[in-house]
């Protein structure tokens, strides 16, 4: 269908508006059904769009304003396979979020569905747009709807702190992006990505271009929670309602990196190409720092949602490393990994929601042993942890292996150690939590455990006491278990489908070819779609790394549980090496928004300095 791109974005918005106007008069189940129906419809529309884009990128001009000569008069949606893929992924996660929240919020009003539908629309728009300012507008819409959702349960103090920190840092992100846009507009007089890319591609990057790149990347890094722009994430995720967390973790942060990739490949890549290796180093190093810091913080948490939040940060760093290779193979590999990983994290969020609903707590220590009869949830958590570590045949294994292979190709082979190590940390945290909660392993936490343990400094009283649902049910609602299982299953399928890896190849070839992109949008000259020549990998090279991650995860989680039983020399050594830096790291996450803004400024300045050094 010709008009599919605008409809995909307009339908959820229209539904949101109708629900907002009529919601008070409608029964809760009607609202739920409408929301599920709309998101299901969007899934179908996105799949159709995805199918259409397999043949090539297409462009949709709003208002009928086609480009005249090389000047774009209106706004375009430039839909390629990746964009449509984002649409499918986002709508699938939102569908599961609505399914999951079927039994949540007994006393909630109508506005939850409105906000989530708007949130969906914003994500769809970000994936499909071909215009820089349009991207910014969808980015702001995404932020505002997420902020409103993060502050949804206004009953306790926590959600407010999370929502406030989220709101202030992400508004600053939007500001930085808009400043970057203003600079680019001054240079190129255009807002269409293809047109800007055409003008910049004919120039050598100077201070203005590098500064604009820095500001744009910094803004998107804030959204993607890359160190040191990431502090807001754990606060926000740890306090937003669980159905919202699963979408934010699964796709919102990844959209920040998607936007950065889109900008790089369609606007900046040609101008920066002489300095590819140096730029690569900057991005990879940033990714490594993020992954390691996130992994360590993840392991140190015992609040389940904060744990998953830091896992999101850590894996975001892993995605950035892969994107940082600045090759189209790296791009495709990260896409596979991000989708599979996002599904797994969403599933784990659902499991934490089940625990919250059945046991009124999401603190690992508080829940010690209390999950013994939640057998299905336990299995799902185990499977999720293994998927995080990259166990074949989950999609995470496929993605990681492809990335590690590409790392070798670009000469950064040692990065597979980083991938193994970080996924080890995040999986170990989940395994440790699961063992404590579902099996009752490890020493029983006493009040002393909280006070004296340098690895878990938070007091038990900081647990979130009020459940998001109306009470502890006798059986876990079927929809919740189904959501968790369904998400994991999709991740498994992503790994098993060989077609995915190949489809991603040609998709990333088109994403990374600025000339082709420009030809489609500005119809300037005939540029054939890029052809892909690559034998598909057997993926066996990834098995040792995966085995290492999985084994390491079990070992680390065992260490986490039974630290007391280590010989005292070993314990003293581990305390000396690990606890001091960890303590510093944890103190930095102070919860104070002024700190976050200061780090944000420093991060932007450092990024600017690094890019300047790399690109001049």
């Amino acid at each position, binding site marked *: 269908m010709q008009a599919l791109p605008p409809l995909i974005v307009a339908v959820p918005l229209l539904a949101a508006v109708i629900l907002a106007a009529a919601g008070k008069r409608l029964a809760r189940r009607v609202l739920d059904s409408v929301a599920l129906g709309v998101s299901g419809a969007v899934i179908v529309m996105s799949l159709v769009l995805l199918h259409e884009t397999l043949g090539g990128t297409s462009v949709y001009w709003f208002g009928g304003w086609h480009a005249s000569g090389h000047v774009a008069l209106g706004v375009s949606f430039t839909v390629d396979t990746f964009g449509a893929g984002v649409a499918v992924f986002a709508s699938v996660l939102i569908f599961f979020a609505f399914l999951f929240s079927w039994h949540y919020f007994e006393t909630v009003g109508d506005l939850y569905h409105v906000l989530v539908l708007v949130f969906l629309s914003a994500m769809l728009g970000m994936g499909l747009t071909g215009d820089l300012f349009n991207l910014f507008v969808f980015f702001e819409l995404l932020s505002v709807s997420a902020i409103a959702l993060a502050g949804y349960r206004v009953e306790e103090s926590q959600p407010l*702190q999370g929502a406030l920190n989220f709101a*202030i840092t992400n508004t*600053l992100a939007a*500001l930085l992006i808009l400043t970057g846009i203003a600079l680019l507009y001054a240079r190129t007089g255009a807002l269409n990505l293809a047109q800007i890319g055409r003008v910049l591609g004919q120039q050598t990057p100077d201070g203005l271009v590098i500064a604009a790149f820095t500001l744009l990347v910094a803004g998107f890094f804030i959204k993607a929670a890359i160190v040191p722009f990431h502090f807001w994430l754990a606060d926000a995720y740890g306090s937003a309602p669980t159905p919202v967390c699963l979408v934010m973790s699964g796709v919102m942060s990844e959209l920040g990196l998607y936007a950065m990739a889109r900008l790089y490949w369609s606007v900046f890549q040609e101008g920066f190409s002489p300095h590819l290796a140096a730029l690569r180093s900057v991005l990879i190093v940033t990714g490594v720092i993020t992954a390691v810091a996130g992994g360590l913080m993840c392991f140190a948490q015992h609040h389940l949602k904060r744990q998953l939040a830091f896992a999101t940060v850590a894996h975001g760093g892993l995605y950035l490393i892969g994107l940082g290779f600045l090759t189209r193979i790296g791009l495709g590999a990260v896409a596979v990994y991000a989708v599979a990983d996002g599904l797994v994290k969403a599933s784990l969020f659902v499991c934490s929601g089940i625990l919250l609903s059945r046991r009124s707590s999401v603190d690992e220590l508080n829940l010690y042993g209390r999950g013994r009869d939640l057998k299905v949830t336990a299995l799902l958590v185990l499977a999720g942890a293994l998927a995080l570590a990259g166990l074949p045949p989950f999609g995470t294994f496929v993605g990681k292996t492809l990335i590690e292979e590409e790392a070798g190709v670009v000469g950064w082979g040692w990065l597979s150690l980083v991938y193994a190590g970080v996924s080890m940390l995040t999986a170990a945290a989940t395994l440790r939590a699961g063992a404590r909660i579902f099996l009752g392993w490890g020493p029983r936490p006493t009040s002393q455990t909280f006070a004296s343990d340098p690895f878990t400094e938070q007091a038990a009283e900081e647990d979130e006491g009020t459940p998001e649902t109306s009470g502890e049910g006798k059986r876990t609602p079927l929809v919740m278990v189904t959501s968790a299982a369904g998400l994991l299953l999709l991740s498994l399928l992503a790994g098993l489908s060989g077609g995915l890896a190949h489809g991603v190849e040609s998709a990333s070839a088109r994403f990374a070819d600025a000339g082709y992109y420009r030809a489609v949008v500005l119809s300037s000259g005939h540029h054939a779609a890029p052809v892909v020549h690559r034998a598909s990998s057997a993926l066996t090279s990834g098995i040792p790394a995966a085995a290492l991650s999985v084994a390491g995860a079990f070992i680390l989680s065992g260490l986490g549980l039974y630290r007391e039983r280590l010989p005292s020399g070993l314990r003293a050594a581990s305390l000396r090496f690990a606890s001091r830096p960890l303590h510093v790291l944890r103190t930095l996450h102070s919860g104070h928004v002024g700190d976050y803004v200061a780090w944000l*400024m420093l991060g932007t300045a450092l990024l600017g300095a690094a890019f300047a050094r790399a690109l001049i």
Partner: protein
Amino acid sequence: MSVLPYLVAAWLLLVGCYGMVTSRNLVHLIVCLSVTQSSTYILLLAVGYKAGAKPPIFFEVPVGTRAVDPIVQALTLTDIVVSLAVSALLLALTVQAHKRSGSLDPSSLTILKG
């Protein structure tokens, strides 16, 4: 002066951020955020300016008269209204924060940490 508006925009950005970092009151912080937002408007409008040109309104003015850039004006005006609403949202969060914790100081709102 040929770069003054740009310098003003840069100054506002930095000074607004300074206000946010050193703020001891959430309402003050949100107003500093507004100040920082206004730096982007100044930058946008300054980028679109043409010396000695007319506004891009051609009511009883012949088309072809030298006029400033309408694009940045369109971007700015919608953005101002939107940031108004976002400030309202932030202030609503602040009202509730004050009710819960009795204080408007960001340092007192650090339950989530580590």
